[in-house]
């Protein structure tokens, strides 16, 4: 499904304390694209992601996903859209500590009116965990997993209901370099092989270079929206002018 954003504006506060977060944003994303939204901290990229994902309804302008104008959907319809068509991957993973990997992946089934029976649903979760390389960690709790493993579980959860779009907010932000690379390779594979539209927020250039298109924000304003045509061929490993990229947090596997 394609995504269209027109005249998007968002601000916080009132009167003199009013602060603009997004100013007149407009762009479109076609099905199957891998789009990176770049910007420094506070540029509004996470806010933009949340609006497109239907998590934030406090904005002005038009955002449509497929044939659905998000502002015109009621709360139930939006929830159903998120459950059926969207997947989310977060920087902090957001796994539930009291559930096993298998149970975490299968959470979306609770809110899917057409969900398969329990055993079929768990079978799907099992299959996804195997796909992301965690076939032997089904009964492990998040406290027993490394950062990279947790993010794989989160990716498997995002894939549970066969989404058309996955929204990723700094998915490698809490991981060390090599683990982050593995996760990004997984995303590339999903985009390439499954045709899933990927929208990834990042503040790191070397990660953005893996996308096919980069949208840059600066102080809430869209400053550029270009296909990713780097001077070198599209990167499959991380190289940034000879300097090692820095993670926001580092994690030992």
């Amino acid at each position, binding site marked *: 499904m394609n995504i269209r954003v027109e005249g998007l504006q968002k601000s916080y506060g009132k009167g003199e304390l009013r602060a603009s977060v997004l100013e007149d944003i407009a762009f479109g994303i076609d099905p199957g694209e891998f789009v990176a939204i770049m910007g420094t901290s506070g540029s509004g990229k*996470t*806010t933009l992601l*949340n609006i497109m*994902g239907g*998590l*934030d309804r406090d904005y002005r302008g038009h955002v449509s996903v497929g044939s659905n104008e998000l502002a015109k959907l009621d*709360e*139930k319809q939006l*929830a*159903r859209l*998120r*459950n*059926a068509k969207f997947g*989310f991957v*977060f920087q902090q993973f*957001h796994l*539930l*500590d*009291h*559930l096993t990997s298998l*149970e975490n992946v299968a*959470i*979306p*089934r*609770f*809110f*899917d*009116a057409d*969900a398969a029976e*329990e055993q079929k649903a768990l079978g799907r979760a099992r299959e996804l965990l195997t796909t992301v390389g965690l076939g032997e960690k089904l009964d492990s709790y998040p406290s027993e997993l490394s950062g990279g493993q947790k993010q794989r579980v989160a990716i498997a*959860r995002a894939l549970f*209901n066969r989404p058309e779009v996955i929204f990723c*907010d700094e998915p490698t932000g809490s991981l060390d370099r090599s683990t982050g690379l593995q996760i990004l390779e997984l995303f590339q594979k999903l985009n390439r092989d499954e045709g899933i539209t990927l929208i990834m927020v990042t503040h790191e250039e070397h990660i953005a270079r893996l996308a096919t298109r980069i949208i840059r924000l600066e102080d809430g304003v869209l400053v550029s929206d270009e296909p990713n045509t780097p001077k070198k061929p599209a990167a499959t490993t991380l190289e940034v002018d000879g300097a090692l990229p820095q993670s926001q947090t580092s994690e030992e596997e």
Partner: protein
Amino acid sequence: MNLQKLLRLVWQSIRRSKRDFLFSSVGIIIGISTLLFFTSLGTGIKETVLERVFVVRQLEVIKKTYDVGAFQSEGLFGAKKLDDSLIEKLDKVEGVRSVYPKMKLTFPTGAFGGKQLIGKDVRGELVADGLPAELISDEEVDPSLEVVFKDYEAISCKQKSDCPKAYTCGDKGVCVGEPCQARRGEESAACEGAAYCHSERKQCMIPIPVVASPKMLEIYNGSIHTALSGSSGALSKLPKLSKNALVGFEANALFGRSFFLGESAGGQQDVRRIRLVGFSDKAIDLGATFPIGYVKRLNAIHSGREEAGREYHAVVVETESNEVTAAVAQKIEDMGYALSDKFENAQRASLLILLITVIFNLISAIILAVAAVNIMHTFLMLILERRRELGLLRALGATRAQIRMLVLSEATALGLIGGSLGITVGFVATKAVDAIFNSQVQDFPFKPDTLFGFAPWMFLMCLGAALFFCWIGALLPAIRASRIDPAAALTGR
């Protein structure tokens, strides 16, 4: 979200915070256990007081009288009579289950006997009344006894085989005793079975069957025996008496003459044997109750007035339930009759018990309200801790209503588990109190076997109360949880 999914989600949530869950349930357990305890206590005491001491479903209709100075008068034209026509009218009143007449002996009567029980004969007054024989059930008088509660002088017959032993079919188609010869106190071979030879009438006669009230036995065992056991002499050795020990006991009734009141107006006197055949709540409280046929005939003979055998001194009306008793009482008073004090005493006792039960139940409700506040506090804390989790569930497709349902379902689980545990604790407490009561409290009249009365509605009420207070406590947290902004929760804002 269907029920199965909801249950799974609730179970997962409870697993997350078992300690908080248990902590929240303590207040519910205490509140529900006290609710069950006091409700069953009120019911138990009410059952004992109103079913045995003051029988509230029984109305005793009597003649209306007026206080005139120190006396009571039936008015210038006399009060309305209590007769068979009144019984017919009362039977048709809505809410009435049964009606039966009572007729007292209206002439002096004495009694003597007791040798078989206490070793020597004693003499005293006999207070007696009569009831229809069909009112006494097989549970009250064993039908296999040789003499049962029936009018042996009014058995219709066509031939001798229709009559009991020692009786034959008389000219009027009624069984009469066979002729016999014996001096007073002696037996005659002509009188088989339970019959004895009446020395003056020279006729076999079956003893007059009587029933007594269990209250007499309660008073003896609970008070008189206790007092006698502390006295000197042979009476201090008297044992407690049981119903089985007393059934079959015989004494002699002296109709027409008593030791304190002298002779009857009719002038005639007759000594008849009487035999105790059972105990009944319908019997006169202190005295003996005969089949009413005997009382009618004896009143007609010994009182000096023919009509004494046709007028009742009271009519007992049993209502279908406690709830309709007041309405039936009003109708009876509207018909121009009065009710004895028993009904008013029962009403007062009932009201007192009700008030005390309500007060204790209010205390339980206060405990439950405090528990609800505790639950609200705990759930609000949990919602705060689970903000990120709830934001995630919204991102994964949960609606606000589903989030509210999740929180309220957790409260439901709390109510069901806490309520069930509270019921168990309350029930065990009642058994413990009963055990202490039975072992530590001395016997007294009408001492109940248990202080508590249970009914299925109590358990449902307790469970319902647990659920209600849990829902009340969880409502605000549920609403707050549903209003969590998923974007803010997930980004830590």
